[in-house]
């Protein structure tokens, strides 16, 4: 690795460290907030996938194509065993 590459690698590492120190937490929380709202919406529309019949199947079917990419994540998030220590970052 050349000197300039090594220097830019070090500066990149410092930049990443600073980002991790000050901004990574807030960025993560913003994504979690968005995910919470999206997953609530998915629960309302296709909650019957998890045995929670909350919505008319007509609307569920109409919205389903938009939600299919997120359904595995949503299922795992709702069904995963949790306790209050999971909320450390919230």
């Amino acid at each position: 690795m050349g000197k300039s590459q090594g220097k830019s690698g070090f500066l990149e590492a410092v930049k990443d460290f600073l980002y991790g120190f000050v901004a990574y937490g807030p960025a993560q929380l913003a994504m979690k907030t968005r995910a919470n709202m999206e997953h609530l919406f998915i629960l309302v529309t296709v909650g019957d996938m998890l045995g929670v019949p909350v919505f008319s199947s007509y609307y569920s079917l109409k919205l389903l194509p938009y939600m299919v990419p997120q359904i595995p994540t949503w299922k795992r998030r709702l069904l995963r065993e949790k306790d209050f220590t999971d909320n450390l970052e919230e």
Partner: protein
Amino acid sequence: MNSVVVLILGFIVAFIGYRVYAKYVDTKIMKADPKRMTPAKMYMDGVDFMPTNRNILFGYQFKSIAGAAPIIGPIIAIQWGWLPALIWILAGTFFIGWVQDYSIAMVAMRHDGASLGGLSHKLISPRARVLLLSFIYFYLLLIAGAFGNVVVSTAINLKAAPMAWLFLTIGGILAGQMIYRWRRDILLTTIVTVIIALFGIWLGSVAPSNKIIGDTLANSRWLWTIVAFVFCYFAAVLPIWRFALPINYVASYIVFLGLFFGIIGVFILHPDFTLPAYTGFSIKIGPLWPIMFVTIACGAISGWHSLVSSSGTARQLENELDARPVAGGVMFVEMMLAVFALIIAGTIYASPSEYGAAIAKGPGGVFAAGVSKFLGAIGLSAETGRSYGSVMMIVLAVTIMQLVIRFMRIATSELLSDISPVFRNAHIGTIIASLLGALLVLTGWWQYLWVLFGGANQLMASLALMLITAYLMSEGKPAAYAFYPMIFMFITTIAALIYTSFSLLQKVISGTVKGEALVGNALMGLVGIFLVIAAFILASEGIRAFSRYRAIRSEEAKAKA
């Protein structure tokens, strides 16, 4: 002894620990596999599980674990002499601290990013999980009390602190508004709000609280306790983007700049230690063993880190090889932070009696005086430097406090909502947590509170080491590197908690303390006893789990033979 020699010693210990011992454990025992799927890569949901660059995680892990504890612990523990404190910081981190942080991250990663509760359920027993969660609740209460005490004593004894804290809060609220509502550029927001916070630090030095609200209010313990817990109340119940998050964001810059330039200041001034290397085995707060070993918590070993490493870091590591630098490496950096705090306490006072007079008012003043001296090396005035140090102390303590109160609110809901649905209410849960914390702050002597917090924290660490040992035994891996530290921490912390609780309850029973001190001592003593009982039950569950795994291994060995 010159402080730079101590810093260099710290660097050497960190280097050998990370490059030799940690590498050995990582490659030969845990056998970190870069090809193995981590939960971050397997699930990759962009929310809980997200593979993240190791350097970013390094900064994030450091931010999560570096609170007030690695600073306050050494400042208090120097009462036994700087030498035993230094030995514990270095040896504790080398043999136990990084072991816990790294190993629990690996174990959680190999169990789908399970939290500590989930791991105890899988590796020990379902009952262990319930006990651990109850233990954590009282542990959080002690954090709220101990850190609350730091905030209150700093606000009272450093009159610049309240104004600086106020402007930091204003800057933080403005940052939240600018980012999330007005959609302003993040760079502009950061510059504006950090300048507001820095202005507040300067303003605090020229407009101290006693000049604004008078001496009576400025010295009122009740007032600052109410302020601290009302602050935490808002942090716990308001949407996180509006209060807690942006304040923590702005505060990160203040802390980072203070630490960075403070350490540069140490190298510039390179002062000698003025306090004695060793003062004696027994002092007012207790004997060197076990009390000093729990007084210095986060700078050597801390159970808090196991919560962070399991619930957070383990779900974001993109590669098993990243666990050593992120989880293990950061612990060595925290060790250096503790060494920095030890240098502050050990070098800025001309004599032990001067230090004694300062520490009697609380550790915040000692830290602020040290930051003032070392920032003075780069040109900051003494008064502004003291104001900077005081707000750093408050920020380091209050960011953990607000997280803890929020956590306790969620824990109250989870543990008590079956008894009555009223506990599900966010305000009720927060008020309960805040009142309990405030009660400890107002009635407890802060040094006992710190020792109890340290004992609970280290006991949490020994329980994490128990989980690690259980995992290693279940996999048939050598467990000595975690087992013996677990035994040492368990015995030490139980001894410390029993000693402190007994001292507190003896004062209550004998009638030595009256009034609010009676309440404080009784509450602290009972919490300490509860933690000891919970720990013994957990240990018995752990022993049963170890026997189970040993029996399985011997059956497998017989079958192979």
